[in-house]
């Protein structure tokens, strides 16, 4: 690639050097004199239709739009002159001519760019005195998105998204002049696999999320960086949760996670995420395993942790004393973090259990953009840790009475291998332990079910299909009595006098990065919020 040519220009008296071809808007951003914008989106083509990004460029008689004008050598840009500010104010007045100003009922309020820029540049005494044009309101244009055409500022971001990114072309702008109206083409619905993204990029409340609709005001939300566990792409996300839940338990019936939003990562998902991942967060608050459960002959009992751990440790001790640890098997899951996989592998190998495998969930659909067929976040991490794959052999062994104890993590095996095989295995086993986050048919077959923390309640890392190790952060504390897996193993190891202890995910990762070849040289600092690649 030829070296790009660099040019220098002056923005508000500051000189910046940028590669040739950069727009004035990007140059201004680099000079830390940000310019407001609506229609510009770094991931879409430039439309230049909203006109809010006006700046004054010395030598041109009129204000120019920063998003479309190329920066040139020696250009002198002013983003704060009276002329510029008046220009922005007038543009805002135009944009608001037909706007219904229904912020109180609008879900966007609080994160709305119209509100934000109006606070900075508003004309608080508007001159407009005519009738506003009425347009359709609260129209469900697809399973995920609600349209309010009156609030639209016709920036065409959504149109460009469906044309350029999802390539499905549902949106269009119809009619002319001030009757222009956003909508989906007649007979179409917005139901592509990436439809939720138009809500993120719509700068105003014209497109809102039906899943999030009226659920929670955005100013009640807290946000934590995480990674989507929906497939092995590992799209970078933010978990938005109800941070005021302690005193506002009525919001969304007390659920904690309100929505997921994609987070920019140029190497993974850019600005986007798929709908399956976006709306696949409900398991965090629904149908959770909250307590240790014992099940004998169909009767369920809730027990304290101590008893559960005692029982498991006792059985393992018996096996160890009888030198029969080859009759124990472990089925880990590619839903577990690298830290938890490492901790559990270390626990079982120190104990002397050799039959340790991991299992992926059923594979699903995939495409050439983001969605991967492997519907778990960390199969690559399990491979990198040298854990063998496939639970089938162990199930067969169990059914043949060649196993006495089997540990199953997170996953529902009945979905993969059919209920009868798992039932048969459970019948033959002396002890079937399920360690997982949610109740499922497999947890209901287990003799002991231990509640573990979901990804949103844990610190750790996932390795995506390309081998990119990415951080997840705990947004919530574990639900009920759930615990992260590494903690369970720490306590079990203590009971079995294995001389193992795990302090927290970060120390586990430091150890892992020392001992595991592919992870060498990595650390939480290095991974930070954009991830780092495994060694080849």
């Amino acid at each position, binding site marked *: 690639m030829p070296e790009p040519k660099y040019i220098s220009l002056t923005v508000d008296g500051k000189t910046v050097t940028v590669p040739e071809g950069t727009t004035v808007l990007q140059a201004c951003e680099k000079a830390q004199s940000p310019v407001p914008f609506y229609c510009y989106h770094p991931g879409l083509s430039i439309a230049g239709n909203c006109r809010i990004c006006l700046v004054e460029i010395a030598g041109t008689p009129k204000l120019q739009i920063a998003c479309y004008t190329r920066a040139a050598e020696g250009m002198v840009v002013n983003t704060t002159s009276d002329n510029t500010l008046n220009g922005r104010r007038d543009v805002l007045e135009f944009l608001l001519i037909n706007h219904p100003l229904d912020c109180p009922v609008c879900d966007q309020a609080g994160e709305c760019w119209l509100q934000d820029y109006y606070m900075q540049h508003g004309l608080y005494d508007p001159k407009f005195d005519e009738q506003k044009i009425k347009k359709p309101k609260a129209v469900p244009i697809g399973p995920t998105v609600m349209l309010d055409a009156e609030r639209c500022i016709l920036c065409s971001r959504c149109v460009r998204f469906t044309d350029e990114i999802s390539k499905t072309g549902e949106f269009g702008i119809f009619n002319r002049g001030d009757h222009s109206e956003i909508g989906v083409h007649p007979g179409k619905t917005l139901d592509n696999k990436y439809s939720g993204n138009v809500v993120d990029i719509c700068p105003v409340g014209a497109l809102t999320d039906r899943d999030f609709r009226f659920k929670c005001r955005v100013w009640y939300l807290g946000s934590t960086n995480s990674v989507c566990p929906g497939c092995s792409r590992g799209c970078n996300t933010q978990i938005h949760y109800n941070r005021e*839940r*302690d005193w*506002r338990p009525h919001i969304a019936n007390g659920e904690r996670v309100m929505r997921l939003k994609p987070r920019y990562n140029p190497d993974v998902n850019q600005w986007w995420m798929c709908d399956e991942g976006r709306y696949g967060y409900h398991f965090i608050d629904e149908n959770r395993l909250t307590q240790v459960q014992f099940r004998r002959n169909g009767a369920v009992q809730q027990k304290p942790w101590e008893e559960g751990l005692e029982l498991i440790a006792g059985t393992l001790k018996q096996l160890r004393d009888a030198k029969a640890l080859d009759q124990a098997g472990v089925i880990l899951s590619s839903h577990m973090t690298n830290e938890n996989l490492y901790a559990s592998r270390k626990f079982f190998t120190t104990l002397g259990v050799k039959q340790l495998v991991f299992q992926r969930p059923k594979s699903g659909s995939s495409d050439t953009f983001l969605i991967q067929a492997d519907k778990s976040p960390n199969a690559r991490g399990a491979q990198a840790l040298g854990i063998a794959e496939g639970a089938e052999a162990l199930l067969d062994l169990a059914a043949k009475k060649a196993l006495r104890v089997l540990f199953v993590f997170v996953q529902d095996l009945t979905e993969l291998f059919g209920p009868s095989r798992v039932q048969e295995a459970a019948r033959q086993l002396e002890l079937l332990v399920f360690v997982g986050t949610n109740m499922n048919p497999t947890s209901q077959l287990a003799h002991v079910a231990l509640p573990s923390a979901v990804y949103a309640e844990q610190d750790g890392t996932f390795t995506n299909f390309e081998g990119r190790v990415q951080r997840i952060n705990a947004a919530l*504390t574990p639900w009920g009595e759930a615990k992260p897996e590494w903690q369970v193993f720490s306590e079990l190891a203590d009971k079995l006098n294995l001389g193992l202890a795990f302090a927290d995910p970060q120390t586990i990762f430091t150890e892992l990065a020392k001992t595991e070849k592919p992870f060498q040289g990595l650390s939480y600092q290095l991974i930070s919020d954009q991830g780092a690649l495994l060694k080849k």
Partner: protein
Amino acid sequence: MSTLSEQLLHRIRDAHKRREMTWWERTYLPAIAQGLWLTSRHFWRNLFLHIAHRVGLFRDVPAAVTIQYPDQQRQMAPRLRTRHRLTKRADGTPRCVACMMCETVCPARCIYIVAGEHPDPNVEKVPKSFDIDLGKCVYCGYCVEACPEDAIRMDTQRHDIAAYSRDGMWLDIKELLNPGSKQFGEPPEKFVQLPPPPSR
């Protein structure tokens, strides 16, 4: 030398300490005499003034009156902040659009609103439930100030809350739309159930 905050703390603690009473005080005789003196002074003063008012004397010196509460209610200034109500549209539905401004601003965090869909897309949002926990409310009136729809007012002229339990002090949307319809002896009809302290 103790710090200022320590001194303040001591003063607050000392304020709770009782002084030892003397023997004379413990007979309670001086306190009884004092009480009798105070009561009879008011009695004779009011007796004199009410008779004087009858004959047109000392009209500008006020005397105490008794209001037979609760059979008789005292006239209150219209601007006094009293119990809340929700205003209605012409068709009888609440004006409230469940914007949560009052819920957000409330310093006692005693407003609990659950939003729902309004059949008219031009209204769009309406409260499915609207509860105020009067047991917590500090009658600051911020909710009224914050409302962009003039949907909540504190002008019912009611200020009595007596109930057999804290739960009984909740106002639900029915009472708020029709002030005075709730019997406080009734079992609470709360939409929002506060769970025991969450485990997060």
